[in-house]
């Protein structure tokens, strides 16, 4: 029987399935945190969450509001410091990270600094990198959870805050970033996107239930290629939705937004 679900629930469930057991993920608040908690309660009980301000291995009982608040080390392994997290990233101990942004381009480069105007006098200023550039520089696999529309998915980001594949194959390494690190998946309300290994350009890997390939393309400001192994996303299962609604976010702080 098909269950009703909203876009956020779908994105959280899909993101959760991409996290493997016995791995380390640096997470932000909101969707990434919900995806991590769901994974821990289903297929990845030994997945360890690390937060930017230092918390490691929390047995999350409540969604944190800040990546530095006390929830991020609730019944955890260590409360740590920001240097502990950043150093673990830099020395290659972090498998996954989750990011978002105001704009993303075909190479997975992200803008969370400003849009419109100039750097000195921006039309709309956003927070900036925070730790996003650090995560995108160092995590082995960067995942992005984001709503998809042509204003967000742009041919060229107005400001390259955090590195994707930069200008294409070999560009990260040429810039000095660690080899084999970088963009992995983009999860939107329409599809799961990945990257073509030859060109490093974003492509459609699976289309969500009830969505057409054309709809995914229409919601992007640049041409999306289709993966040769194009698949259909599995809808959230009853069990996933039950865990999400009853255990991960019972107050609907995030998933009902």
């Amino acid at each position, binding site marked *: 029987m098909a269950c009703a679900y909203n876009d956020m629930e779908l994105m959280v469930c899909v993101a959760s399935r991409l996290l493997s057991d016995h791995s380390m993920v640096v997470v932000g608040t909101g969707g990434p945190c919900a995806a991590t908690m769901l994974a821990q309660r289903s297929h990845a009980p030994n997945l360890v969450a690390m937060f930017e301000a230092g*918390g490691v291995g929390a047995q999350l009982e409540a969604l944190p509001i800040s990546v530095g608040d006390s929830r991020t080390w609730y019944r955890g392994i260590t409360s740590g410091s*920001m240097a502990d997290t950043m150093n673990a990233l830099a020395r290659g101990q972090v498998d996954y990270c989750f990011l978002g942004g105001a704009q993303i381009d075909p190479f997975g480069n992200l803008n969370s600094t400003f849009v419109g105007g100039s750097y000195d006098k921006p039309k709309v200023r956003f927070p900036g990198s925070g730790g996003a550039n650090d995560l995108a520089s160092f995590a082995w696999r960067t995942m992005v959870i984001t709503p998809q529309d042509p204003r967000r998915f742009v041919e060229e*980001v107005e400001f*390259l805050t955090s590195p994707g594949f930069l200008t294409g194959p070999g560009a990260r390494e040429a810039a*000095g970033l660690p080899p084999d690190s970088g963009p992995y998946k983009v999860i939107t309300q329409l599809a799961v996107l990945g990257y073509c290994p030859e060109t490093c350009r974003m492509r459609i890997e699976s289309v969500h239930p009830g969505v057409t390939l054309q709809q995914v393309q229409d919601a992007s400001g640049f041409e999306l290629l289709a993966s040769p192994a194009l698949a259909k996303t599995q809808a959230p299962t009853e069990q996933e939705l039950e865990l999400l609604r009853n255990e991960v976010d019972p107050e609907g702080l*995030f998933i009902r937004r």
Partner: protein
Amino acid sequence: MSDALPRGIGRIFTDPDPDALRAHHRKKSKGMVPKVTTVRTAIERFVQDGCYLASGGFGGVRIPTALLHEVVRQGRSGLGFAGHTTTHDFQILAAGNCVDRCDAAYIVGLEMRGLSPNARRAVQSGDIELTEWTNAALLWRLRAAAMGLSFLPTRSMLGTDTFVQSAAVELHCPFTGKTYAAVPALSPDIALIHVHRADPYGNCQIDGSTVADLDVAAASRHVVVSCEQLVSSEQIRSEPDRTVIPYYMVDAVVEVPYGSYPGNMPGEYYSDETHLAEWLTVERDPQAFAEFLQQNIHGVEEFQSYLERNGGIDRLRELRRIELLIDAGEES
């Protein structure tokens, strides 16, 4: 999209020369003497117009709210500011028009809560000069100063516009040839840090994440600490492994219970999301915001009255229960 430049175009707001910091520290008193004072005196004495300020904690977690309110109340201006995941702290200083230059890693936002309309206005107007960084880059800039160095190498920022708008310089490793961004040491004139416990000399304990506070304290020329509780030196000495910031880094100690409110104080009270949401709402209307600031900061003699205004002991008791995940059931 830009090609990586070998040198960022941002300005360095503070002197990265370690010998300048060494000369300062040679003269700074190492005397283990009581340093307890009042919020007003501490800010009058250590925060001058034009100086460069850093705040401890993590934006909405263990922040020195009481000290920052006093900076606004005393009308400080022309301040430089270290913005590493600064959320409500930057919001407070922006409300007071205190800052005119900022090393920005994370500003104007409050994480999941949204963006501060007033802090955005301040930045979008161009009134605050920015140099762009990442949280790790700012952390390592502070650590360089704390280590008595003028820079540290990092691989953060490489290949991005964040690097272009920073003041980092590319360099190559003499051993491996790898490319790094050299980030200049950052030594704030003054750090304001809120901790759980301090003794009268300034030996500080922090419960939970220390964020970057040891680096902030060690890198800064002067440090003012506010604490939830003033404790005896014997208590500190009975568990010396728990001391995070030692007295010789600290210039003044102020006891301010609930001094991080409306921020989270780990193990003590959770963030007051209702009051933080009120800030974000009222900021949309500059007139209403001016009145709000008058009621909550300018027209308030001391921090205790601010707490009273926003629910007092009942609200703080609620926030303690939220923090400790205590389900008290239905109280009649």
